[in-house]
């Protein structure tokens, strides 16, 4: 439990130091609140047409205006944020699980057949062009699309590059002497991973999950623009699609097309800054330097 405590302290310290990290964290918290809590108060399903007067610009009653088909843009946005995050988290989760497994096996068992085969698979998957692949899948399964399915599709290729990265981390750590010390101390493979590799892997883990989330949300937006996303649901992509479909920009209904654009920019930039910040914090070298500084402070205070 002291590790978490230390981690928490580190986080707050970092918040004070890095403005971009603070921006990221604050924005994400606001968006999460909007997406998961505020959205619960929606008076009706925001995707339903004709519930509110059409084409109203932002005003007190409709803070983000209304669409040409009679939807409240504000509530639409809250649902879209929620769906985007759900998609991001699911993609991140599935991809990380696959990436961790494939990366570890190909790295740790590099000389054995298992390692070589997994490496081959990783290399093959990492060259699949993402957008066309997803577009084809989305088109083929048009009727069944929902956030979970899109997440699964994305995960089938999202794991490839991260596992390459993990593989190189594992290859490097594997040769470190303290891993051999652990083996000589009777550690099992799982113990070794947890105790020797994890501190070095944490940084990768944090940045990769956040990157996958960003990527997934970006991909969904791209799908939506082409009309290939989950069209009945409220997502950033579909909102953009309908806005473009009804020529919102040309007709001057900037709030309809502007909201999803601003939302996706906010989500992606805040995720980005958080990933940079976490990567820095969890970076083994900076953690070690911090550890050393704390020890010397403690020793000095003992004088």
């Amino acid at each position: 439990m002291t590790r978490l405590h230390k981690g928490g302290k580190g986080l707050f310290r970092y918040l004070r130091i890095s403005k971009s990290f603070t921006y990221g964290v604050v924005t994400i918290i606001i968006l999460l609140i909007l997406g998961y809590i505020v959205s619960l108060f929606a008076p009706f399903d925001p995707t339903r047409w004709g519930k509110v007067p059409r084409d109203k610009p932002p005003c007190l009653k409709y803070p983000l205006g209304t669409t040409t088909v009679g939807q409240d843009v504000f509530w639409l946005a809250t649902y879209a944020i929620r769906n985007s995050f759900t998609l991001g988290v699911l993609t991140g989760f599935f991809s990380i699980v696959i990436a961790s497994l494939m990366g570890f096996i190909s790295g740790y068992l590099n000389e054995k057949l298992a390692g070589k085969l997994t490496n081959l698979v990783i290399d093959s998957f990492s060259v699949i062009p993402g957008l066309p692949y997803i577009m084809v899948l989305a088109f083929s399964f048009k009727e069944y699309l929902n956030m979970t399915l899109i997440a699964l599709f994305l995960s089938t290729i999202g794991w490839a590059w991260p596992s390459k990265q993990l593989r190189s981390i594992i290859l490097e750590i594997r040769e470190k002497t303290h891993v051999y010390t652990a083996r000589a101390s009777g550690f099992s493979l799982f113990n070794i991973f947890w105790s020797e590799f994890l501190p070095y892997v944490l940084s990768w883990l944090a940045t990769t999950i956040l990157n996958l989330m960003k990527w997934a949300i970006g991909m969904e937006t791209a799908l939506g623009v082409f009309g290939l996303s989950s069209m009945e649901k409220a997502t950033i992509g579909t909102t953009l699609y309908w806005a473009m479909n009804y020529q919102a920009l040309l007709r001057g209904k900037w709030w309809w097309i502007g909201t999803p654009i601003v939302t996706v920019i906010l989500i992606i930039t805040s995720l980005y800054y958080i990933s940079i910040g976490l990567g820095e914090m969890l970076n083994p070298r900076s953690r070690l330097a911090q550890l050393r500084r704390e020890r010397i402070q403690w020793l000095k205070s003992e004088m």
Partner: protein
Amino acid sequence: MVEIRNVKAYYKIGADIFVRAVDGVSISFDEGKITGIAGESGCGKSTLLKVCTGWIKPPLTVLEGKVVYNFNDEEVDILNLDEEKLQRYRWRLFAIVPQAAMNSLNPVRRIKKIFEETLNQSGKKKLSEKEKKMIEKVITDVGLPKEVLNMYPPQLSGGMKQRVIIALAIIARPKVIFCDEPTTGLDLVTQKGILLLLRELKDRYGITIILISHDMGVHAQVTDNLAIMYAGKLIEYASTHDIFKDPLHPYTKSLINSLPMIGDKMQKERLPGAPPPLFRPPKGCRFHPRCKYATEICEKKEPPLKEIKPGHYVACHRIGEE
């Protein structure tokens, strides 16, 4: 040739925490000789080298002292120079062979290009014939075949890379070369080669060489004078012969006595304890916690460096008395 006058150089690692790597060291290096600096890891040898070559970057700060180079009847205190003037002296007055330098050769540049870049500080594009000849000469000086110029660093062995580094250091004919652990990581036969090479360069060109190493065998074979550092302080300095034949400081004595030698079957004694942490050195003589001869004064007062015999300096209260 080079005089270090009472230099204090510390590393600032916290609000008021200083690692006193070089704490009031004064020493002078004779011209045309090889002077060795010996001591355990963390005694301040590498920091001393940084100070001597003006390589002072935070968290390292020089609190006081001068580093004076005497040449051409001039005295230059490099700690007082600004970066531009210092750049002019680098490579021409003094050169450095840093620790593990061979690992820092750019692996995607041919050796020839690395030389050209070093010579081309003025930014000219092509090299004159004279400069090309200089490069070839210096490569043969270190015993490498000319083919090496067209190769890339990863194709060379450790010993060859180190010789390239030495060649780079001597190409501008500096007066002084500082070598920090030049043979660490090299095998015995290559080590012997590199050390003999340094001796040859001194004999042939009269270069002053300062050699840092924790290996006393290396010092015995190559250096003319030897300085022993402990916990940031200079504790003994004399000709290498005198240090080995007649070590005066208790630390030097136990150091010499603990060296295993082939043919010597005597069981050796070890020195208990460990060197003190440099951010919290003990009061008085820094060696007193481990010294079997320590007395009351050793705990309170720092012993000054005194010339006990002609050319033989020791910092020890006991020796001073006798």
